[in-house]
């Protein structure tokens, strides 16, 4: 854009010049976009879970357990995004949360560690229920 053209539009709305592909230029930008994108596969998987619950309400004759290869592949892809969301989101806790215990700030590494510990405990408990009550 020439200097003249820029001057004539100076009082108009500012339009950022970044193209839609800005996030492909740097690894860091790319990973940021991957983190934001994780919402989509996770949303799809939860909608599938809601559909499975709905399907159970239609009676035993219409019921079949999901076993197709396509579904397993879909789940594997969703799991990779889910793990990336968990890793990035729980790591953030160390930046966001600030506590003091006995007038001493709790180190952020300890906070992050406690978040990952919570994730591990919750996963073991939920996994045990899902598998233990199954047959």
């Amino acid at each position: 854009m020439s200097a003249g053209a820029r001057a004539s539009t100076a009082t108009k709305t500012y339009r950022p010049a970044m193209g839609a592909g800005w996030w492909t230029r740097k690894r860091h930008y790319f990973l940021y976009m991957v983190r934001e994108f994780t919402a989509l596969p996770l949303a799809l998987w939860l909608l599938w879970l809601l559909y499975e619950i709905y399907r159970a309400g239609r009676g035993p004759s219409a019921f079949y357990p999901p076993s197709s290869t396509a579904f397993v592949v879909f789940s594997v892809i969703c799991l990779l995004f889910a793990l990336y969301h968990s890793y990035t989101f729980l790591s953030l806790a160390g930046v966001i949360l600030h506590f003091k215990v006995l007038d001493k700030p709790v180190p952020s590494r300890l906070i992050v560690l406690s978040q990952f510990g919570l994730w591990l405990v919750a996963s073991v408990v939920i996994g045990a229920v899902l598998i233990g009550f199954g047959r």
Partner: protein
Amino acid sequence: MSETKPVGFSGYATIEHKPALAHLFWWFMFAQGGVLAAILIPVHILVQGILGPLGIVTVVDRHYDTWIGILGNPIVKLYLLVLISLPFFHFAHRLRYLLVDLGVPAAKTVVAQVIFYGGAVLVTLLAIYVLLTTAPISLG
């Protein structure tokens, strides 16, 4: 900070600094949804989406009577409502800003906010409806 304030009929300054309660609410839902998604979703995908379908372990949703039985438990219903609906308040924000980052400024408008956060509310209502109509509540 001092500023010249217009004075209303009552004689009191009319400038009010309202707390951004709506902002606080949606931000809280974004954070809670994010934490819940991070802690709860991976194990569900691993067990119900991969290990169960591959036949590696037994899972509650592989047989009709086990699945419908566990879905009747009120605590399970409440848990599933939290698991399914709260993350959508997180997803709504993330996906709206994903569009902004991809060069869609329209995703910043009020209309877009209504569509995305309204979508999360819709999923919540849908989840409540499905959970209440799927299996009768029982403690057995």
